[in-house]
């Protein structure tokens, strides 16, 4: 069984957030970690590996320094790592990213693709399902439990007030929630081995069946109008009125702000 886990290097939310002049994130200037949902997805894959002996490949698209999250994944127990990096891929939105990753995945054999639900930098939750769409695969999102059942997977999908238990035939794609599990630590020996291993590096030329017009900033339909760091909220206004007066006061404020 072959599992490919798509992971992303994201800015550590504990560090400061910095932007490029075009409004995209200045990733080179920030401390970076493996996206938490992706790490849970990797752990899920490694647990399947522990049980079944599956081969786990990790894949990321990013700057050359994204090599660090691939080494971390190898040190946790992944077998192979692929870095997709190229200048022409920079500034990609979810469409261009999923197009790129699907183009890379077309080179690989897989039974199961696992991605995180969403990355803590963009929070779109779009890339996983879009990859599945590009590859014509069934997708089960928001997985909080994954079981392998012969040539199928049984997934508990988190829903607003309940969960769904879904079965899908492999190959398919699952997006994982960080609640799925508690990811393991690396081991010291795993780290040493990870740095002895070769990380496969792919560029634009290695992507299969993709158009240049769908890649990078130019291929991104999303245009960022403005980006800013969190703006501190003001203290607000406190009023002490009886219920009837409160309603009248609030209605007046809503009208004033054109909310109603």
């Amino acid at each position: 069984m072959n599992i490919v886990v798509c992971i992303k290097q994201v800015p550590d939310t504990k560090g400061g957030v910095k932007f490029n002049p075009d409004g995209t994130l200045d990733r080179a200037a920030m401390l970076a970690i493996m996206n938490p949902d992706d790490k849970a997805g990797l752990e899920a894959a490694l647990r399947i590996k522990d049980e079944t002996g599956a081969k786990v490949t990790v894949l990321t698209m990013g700057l050359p320094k994204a090599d660090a999250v691939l080494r971390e994944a190898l040190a946790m127990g992944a077998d192979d790592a692929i870095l997709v990096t190229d200048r022409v891929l920079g500034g990609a939105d979810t469409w261009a990213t999923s197009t790129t990753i699907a183009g890379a995945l077309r080179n690989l054999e897989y039974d199961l693709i696992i991605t995180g639900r969403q990355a803590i930098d963009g929070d779109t939750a779009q890339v996983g399902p879009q990859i599945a769409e590009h590859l014509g695969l069934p997708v089960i999102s928001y997985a909080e439990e994954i079981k392998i059942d012969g040539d199928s997977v049984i997934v508990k999908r988190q829903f607003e007030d309940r969960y769904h238990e879904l079965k899908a035939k492999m190959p398919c794609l699952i997006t994982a929630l960080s609640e799925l599990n508690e990811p393991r630590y690396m081991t010291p020996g795993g780290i040493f081995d990870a740095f002895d291993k070769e990380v496969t590096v792919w560029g634009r030329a290695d992507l299969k069946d993709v158009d240049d017009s769908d890649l990078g900033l130019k291929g991104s339909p999303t245009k960022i109008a403005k980006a800013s760091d969190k703006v501190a909220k003001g203290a607000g206004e406190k009023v002490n009125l009886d219920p009837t007066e409160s309603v009248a006061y609030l209605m007046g404020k809503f009208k004033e702000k054109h909310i109603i």
Partner: protein
Amino acid sequence: MDFSLDKKHEMARSLFKEFAEAEVKPLAQETDETETFPMETVKKMQKYGFMGIPVPKEYGGQGCDPLTYVMCVEELSKVCATTGVIVSAHTSLCVDPILTYGTEEQKQKYVVPLASGEKIGAFGLTEPGAGTDAQGCQTKAVLDGDEWVLNGSKCFITNGKVADVYIVIAVTSVTEDKRGRKKKNFSAFIVDKGAPGFSFGTKEKKMGIRGSSTYELIFEDCRIPKENLLGPEGKGFPIAMHTLDGGRIGIAAQALGIAEGALERAIAYTKERKQFGRSIAQQQNTQFKLADMAARVEAAQLLVYKAAMAKATQKVYSVEAAKAKLFAAETAMAVTTEVVQLFGGYGYIREYDVERMMRDAKITEIYEGTSEVQRMVISGALLK
């Protein structure tokens, strides 16, 4: 000369740091307060290979170098010195001598389960009447057929009761030199827990590292197989001294971690604590103290890492180890004392970690060779 760590060691440090913060730090105060050996933490460290970091993979270890091991003890000790010394005593004092002096059979039988963490190791040299002067050892071993028979006791043994495998140094013969002076000849032995005639004395109640299991080992006609002699008969003293050279690097790393942990807390606290309308970090007195401590801690780190590198590349590293331990231990004591002072009254309260750190620091100036012994080793090499 490049003083920066490579990516591999940086990642190892981030692993140890993450583990220490998440798994060890939350238990540090309780471990100290209740004087309980942190067995759950040790089990987690076993799972992630922390009990066999510098051991080759063919013997069940992680195949890393002494520097990686040192960084592990350092990061653990930043948050809990008890946890640091458990790993240090196990690795440096028990696994290392078997790996260095053991036969292939001994390595397979003992190093493999020790390095995987399935078993815990300890080392017994000190006796009630023999600390710095190891010649005062009274514990004897006599060969009786296919067995060695041990009689005597060892005291202040780290991992004392929790260990499964013990390296024990005992007198196996006494010879006279030309002038008629008697000299004890020592040998090293591997003793399993549960060996007939092997029992434990009282648990020591200590000032610091209170979660560490410190016990007296008692041997009353304790019989162990003949093949459990470690290294050649009569070579126990050099084996013990060489083992302690490695052990001192581990304790130096523990001391370094304590000092770093205390300094980190001082930086955070002095920025928060307000007196006379501003944080005490804004007072020049605090700033100068922090600067002095930071310079000293970094110097200690360089000596400790240098000793670890020497262990990786040199056959003999006694002086490097002695300098690292002397300086790191005295740094730990000085820094923790100063940090308690910066904390003022709160520093004296057990709720704050720095009180524990100051108590923990003291032992690093004493065990595995006192600071005075380290000075003897260093000056001995200078005046040779």
